[in-house]
């Protein structure tokens, strides 16, 4: 009787901890070694169907927006143009481009932003970062205060590539 009492009563049962700790450490080491800290990456979609120039774009009320990027032989930006307008070549030029795009589309979310296309015509040597920045300035605006993104033009395409400067 005494024996039965002892086993059915609220006694402490020892769980074997050692195997569990072994496995948990294995897992921990696995995940630690596999951890790679990378900053998140985002995409810019570009609209490049085969059979390059889209005939449909011609008879829309808004003409294509042509952004030109000119550079020297080392790929440094020398001039940004919008249509025939010169915008300069510094950081302020990108802001001006951003404003001009907004003026063209009227207001963000305008249905026309789905139709109108920005064509980027860059010199062969232009460093890729300027192109990405241009695409970014054409596709929208990031408001640091509200952390909201306002979308401008959605379709981006490239003009046919130029030959490298001899």
């Amino acid at each position, binding site marked *: 009787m005494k024996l039965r009492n002892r086993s059915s009563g609220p006694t402490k049962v020892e769980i074997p*901890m050692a195997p*569990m*700790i072994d496995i*948990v*450490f294995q*897992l*921990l080491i696995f*995940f*630690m070694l*596999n*951890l*790679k800290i*990378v*900053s*998140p*990456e*985002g*995409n*810019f*979609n*570009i609209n*490049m*169907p*085969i059979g390059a120039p889209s005939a449909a774009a011609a008879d829309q009320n808004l003409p294509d927006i042509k952004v030109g*990027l000119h550079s020297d032989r080392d*790929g440094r930006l020398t001039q940004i143009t919008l249509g025939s307008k010169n915008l300069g070549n510094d950081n302020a030029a990108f802001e001006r481009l951003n404003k001009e795009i907004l003026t063209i589309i009227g207001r963000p979310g305008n249905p026309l932003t789905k139709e109108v296309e920005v064509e980027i015509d*860059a*010199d*062969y*040597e*232009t*460093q*890729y*970062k*300027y*192109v*990405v*920045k241009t*695409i*970014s300035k054409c*596709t*929208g605006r*990031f408001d*640091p205060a509200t952390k909201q*993104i306002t979308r401008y033009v959605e379709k981006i395409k*490239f003009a*046919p*590539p*130029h030959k*490298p400067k001899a």
Partner: protein
Amino acid sequence: MKMRKIEMGFTEPDMTPMIDIVFQLLTFFMIAINFENTKADERVKLPKDTLAKPPTVKPEHELVLNMGYQRDTSGARMKSVPEIFYNERYVEVRQFTPDLEQEKRVMERIHGKEIIKDVTVLIRADSEVPTGLVQELIKKCQETGFSKFSLRATSEEL
């Protein structure tokens, strides 16, 4: 009995706090780990941009192409021409067509003939690569049959 145990000097350490912490760490690493970025090549220094936000819908089929310069440990370029880092090889853009063709054949064999139209080509190019070369790469992809393109950039926090 109790007396004898103490005499042997065997005391069990308290495992509970350690296990708590180990589980915390384990959970942290499990959540922080990201297997998706395994295709991202660290040798490519992507351009940064505030508008580059990770896409909400991930394309079903994608082909990631990394383009950049071979650099030594100090970051200096070892070659003046950028190359595509493709399966542990360095391929120049103008010689890349055979690899693209092969990529296409493999995809067609796995997913069927029409797959090529649904594949998004993700271009991860170094921020200093000449734009003309990126365009050349896009053109080569178009000639092979790819039609959707995305340019990658690191999202920059402000």
